């Protein structure tokens, strides 16, 4: 059985016909060839597969395609550079040295984007809490927190709210 869905993925309207129990991660990576989103554990622990669905961060490895509602707006790492806030975040991650191996970064930076879109006046403790579900084995997190703080300071007015 397949279900029909229309989603807005990274600003583009897309019609999909997928088995309802197919992992949304596989829909993104295999069916839509959006390979930026990563699989690190397949059980919702590492956060590398984090994407935003209707404003909320979700773990796409635990999400069935059928759980993504018709008409849903989806943002993956590939969509960030199409937004002002996403560009600011990318620049801050680059400048502060927040990425090392980079494998956790697609999920990490998507979580950052979701947090700052919700609350651009966030502080370091809130940033750490909001990223506790994104595991990084390289950086020790300090540079990631620095990058998000720096992006928060420059968060564009257009992207607020």
């Amino acid at each position, binding site marked *: 059985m397949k279900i029909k869905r229309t989603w807005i993925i990274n600003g583009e309207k897309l019609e999909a016909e997928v088995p309802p129990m197919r992992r949304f991660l596989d829909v993104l990576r295999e069916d839509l060839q959006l390979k930026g989103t990563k699989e690190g554990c397949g059980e919702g622990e590492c956060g590398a597969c984090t994407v935003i669905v209707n404003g909320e961060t979700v773990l796409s490895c635990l999400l069935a395609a059928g759980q993504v509602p018709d008409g849903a707006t989806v943002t993956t790492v590939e969509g960030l550079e199409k937004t002002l806030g996403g560009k600011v975040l*990318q620049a801050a991650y680059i400048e502060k040295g927040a990425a090392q191996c980079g494998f956790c970064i697609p999920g990490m930076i998507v979580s950052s984007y979701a947090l700052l879109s919700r609350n651009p006046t966030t502080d370091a403790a809130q940033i750490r809490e909001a990223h506790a579900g994104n595991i990084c084995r390289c950086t*020790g997190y300090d540079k990631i927190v620095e990058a998000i703080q720096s992006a928060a300071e420059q968060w564009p007015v257009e992207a607020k709210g």
Partner: protein
Amino acid sequence: MTVQERGAYRVIGQGIPRLDAADKVSGKAEYADDFHVPDTWYGAVVRAPVACGKLKSLSRDPAFDWSQVAVVTPEDIPGNNIVDMMGRDMPFIAHDEIQYLGEPLALVAAPSLHVAKQAAAHFKVDVEERPALLTLQEMVAVYKEDPAKLHKLSGQTIRKGDAASALKDADIVLEREYTAGHQEQLYIEPQGMVAIPERDGTMFIHGSMQCPYYINPELCETLDIPPEKLRVKQSAVGGAFGGKEEFPTLIAGYCALLALKTKRPIKMIYDRNQDILYSTKRHPSWSHYRVGVMKDGTIRAIECDFVLDGGAYTTLSPVVMYRGILHAAMGYRCENVSIDGHVYRTNTFPNGAFRGFGAPQALWAWESLIDELAAACGMTPDAFRLKNCLHEGDVTPTGGLLRDSVGSPEVLEKTLERCQFAEKWQQCSRGKSGERLWYGIGLSFFAHGSGFTGDGEARMKSKVALDLETRADGTPIVNVRVSSTEMGQGTGTILPQVAADALGIDVTHVDYPMPDTFKVPDSGPTVASRTAMVVGSTIYSAGQKMKADLESFVSETLFDGQPTELVENQFRAEYDNRSIPFVEGAAAYLASHGPFRVYDQFKLPDYVKWDQENFVGDAYPAYAWGCNVAEVEVDTLTCEFRVTKVTAFFDIGRILNPVLAMGQVQGGLIQALGYAMMEKLAIKAGKYDADRMQTYVIPTSVDGPEMDLHFVEYPWDHCQPGAKGVGEAPMDGLAPAIANALEAASGVRLRDLPLTPERLFEELSRSQRLTA
């Protein structure tokens, strides 16, 4: 040769962003699971159901549909069924003896991963099971009874002076045992590889790896093909930490054998559960010391047994043990040292490389014991270390002379001052009753050998190349051609920085393409904190050669033979002040001569002498130095404890990129925090109990303490730019610093890693320090 002052460099020492950063923050970087190869089949491994036994037969379930499945058994291996790392005892596919649970018995491939997995589950395995030796604790128990009852994988001794006699003269002798458990590397990208059989008979291996040239000789022997028919290329690597040093040879072999059989590309991406169960871990260790000190704090004699649980086969365990014993009595003056290193077999997956490579295990025990020795002499931990620490001109446990670039005692002095250790030491709770929260501060001090152990670098003779080529847009580019890999640590940025500086150009004109054995010489593996020091200095001299050749070309063809210098991106003529941009001169060179390659090769200084048989001499060309201080808080109601602050100084030699170097220190310390108090693997029914990310717990963004981190710069004098190593030292010292702080807080000492509230509760109960 003396290295230049820091100010003499233009690009080296700048915290420029990583060259691969834009790809990594946009999701464009291509990891092993990201590239599309048409007609790929998926591989899976048929695994042994017991940890120890004899394989009697392997058969396929006739009810299963095998028409879409390819199977490889040992009979299908064209060459030798051997993975020869440092011992020829490990087969690619077991055919007789089974030495660990999950050892490969056959390989399968199918058009979908689902079918491949199903096929792997439809084998009937008949084995005669034998008793397995599974844990460090079981191994040590047998060792104490009779070491000859164990299967020895490797052994080595260090002898200096006469430790046995000197122990008799000591005022105080402490005998202590410490253990450390497994640690999983837990790179976020699981192991993954693709093997593509090409039309001309070349086998192309592409995937996640640290050491492309490890795979070459291994697979040539197994596949029975000449080296020119094996091409190995690194994809973007999502973390490695040693876990992708030797292991990728196995998964590359599985893929290549299946590719040979099916004549199709084969892909294998481990899921996290497979990755934890069937890849290498940090070796569990048992350190047994007898150390004699005089009442004034002089260390008179050190005797040590350093025993590693090697897992099932030899693999790289000998060198892990070597690095362990070379650090097991390092850092302090002592004339009488006797160390016996051993590696024994247990029936688990072979243990292997992990950041620090034996040094964290050795230093965990040694730096804990230093605190115990200080206390036995009635001295504070800082005073004892300041009294005994090695200085420039002192001699190491193997008799090596510390000639230059010795960051001791400065890292120690600076750290103590920065965190106000002496004052805070007075405030420690020491298990005082009646307080809910206990406070403690603890210290560790250590050296970490940079580069290969002993004469490894002299034998390796790392080769590098720089290629002046034309980019697709027509502009000239200098490509760094090395087998040193970028796996997050920054190789792909620091080496272009070094090349740019040596050439006198901006780093925008230099690139680092992913290593491909068809294009790069063998610069050695990306391990042992050697890349910045060894490969970096060789790139520097290659850059100077290329610079000289380009200068002479521009001088002759464009500047009428005037002396010409390439500096700050410009070729400048000495007499008439003419100048042209680098790109113009380089483009002229390319138009006239075509692509231009410069080779260079690392040469160890002549003064580095090493006797590999007796372990006497200069064990390493240089050392990084570090000092870590941890402050802890213990909740006496729950015995939970947390590290509130870490203060540390490191001497890593010349800092090539301060942002990346600090990233290594921060990340390494957080891994060390996990090793010290979070990451625990027990073995139940022959199997690691924490075999998923849900159960194997590593630090998250809310687990780290406040960190106050600094460098002091003692460049290595032998080569420009004088880097030593930064990758591993941050892994070395935090566990003992935390254990030392816990003792200062609670009054009890924990001698087993990881340090857990349960263990603290047991020790406190035993010492009757808990009032409740």
